[in-house]
């Protein structure tokens, strides 16, 4: 029942892609002949090609523009091209006289900057940003001596913690030995 045409039907599935190419005349001679033969017998595919021929040429039509538009278009484009060329040549013209001394000048400046960087003592470039900690209260931050004091206090606190840990371990050992001795004595 291939020849019954419904309103929502397309072409035969196996032919659809080829029929689009057939419509656009993008098929080879042999292929075209085979498709023409199929179309002669298949009303559904014929309708598909007819629909393409009716709908596709009307898609997004070109605007009809007067010759004056194109003359103006051409003039504008050429003016823009001239402007672009003038800008490019302008830059070249500006750079051309500098070519003689521009490279040595930049080279000298670069060497001078490098030499100054080497001559400056390293300490001058150490970052001071890291010393200001967010956790330190604002009133403490005012006095740098206090800041140093707090820092050393932190170290001391850390040391005392370590000492406590070290002290705790032998204490545990000795208590274990004492326990063993007392157990033996009881036995």
């Amino acid at each position, binding site marked *: 029942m291939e020849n019954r045409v419904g*309103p*929502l039907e*397309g072409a035969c599935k196996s032919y*659809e*892609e080829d029929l*689009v*190419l057939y419509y*656009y005349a*993008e098929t080879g001679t042999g292929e075209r002949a085979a498709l023409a033969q199929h179309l002669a017998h298949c009303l559904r595919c014929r309708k*598909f090609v007819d*629909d*393409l021929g*009716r*709908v*596709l040429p*009307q*898609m*997004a*039509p*070109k*605007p009809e*523009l007067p010759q004056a538009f*194109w003359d103006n*278009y*051409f003039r*504008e*484009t*050429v003016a*823009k*091209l001239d402007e*672009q*060329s003038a800008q*490019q040549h302008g830059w070249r013209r500006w750079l051309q006289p500098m070519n003689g001394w521009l490279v040595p000048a930049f080279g000298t400046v670069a060497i001078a900057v490098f030499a100054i960087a080497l001559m400056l003592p390293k300490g001058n470039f150490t970052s001071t940003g890291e010393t200001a900690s967010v956790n330190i209260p604002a009133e403490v931050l005012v006095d740098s001596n206090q800041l140093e004091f707090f820092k050393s206090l932190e170290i001391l606190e850390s040391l005392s913690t370590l000492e406590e840990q070290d002290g705790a371990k032998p204490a545990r050992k000795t208590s274990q030995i004492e326990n063993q001795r007392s157990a033996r004595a009881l036995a």
Partner: protein
Amino acid sequence: MESSQDLGDEELVALCQQGQGHYFEVLVRRYMEKAFHIAYDFTRNKETAKDLSQDAFLRAYANITRFDGRSSFYTWFYRIVVNLCLDHARRNGRVFWESLDKKADEPGGQRQLVDTRSQPDQEAIAGEATRRANATLESMPNKQRTAFLLRNQQGLPIADIAKVMKTTEGTVRVYLHRAVAALRQSLVEFV
């Protein structure tokens, strides 16, 4: 003596590359309508199409020394136009739809996809068909839309579209079929 109008694209490009930039004007004259219409197909706006296509000429001229002649000048140039249009669409969102609506209201501005010779309700149906087809075209993936517009609107052979899009002919055929199928599907009630 041979006029500059008679020179082939490749000869004109070679002359431009040798510093005789005024020969580029012949290429502008030769391709301005094509360039404008490609840009118009993508943007549906006369002023934008003009700006984009003129920009394409400026870019082509600025990069003329980079053109190596491996492809024809016009596929190289069309690629610049298409890229500018796609880039414009990406930057400016979907303006195509609005312009089409506006255009459809203008007398003779937009041809209808179905017969409008009789009753007003048929005109409404035709308007709806046009809107739907254009909305489908607008919502298509860029590659499908490009393949469709270059084949259907510009009449470029699939082989050249493949060069413009830097892909294979088989891929262009698939894009074209999908685009046509999508359009037909959107108009299935009207055809």
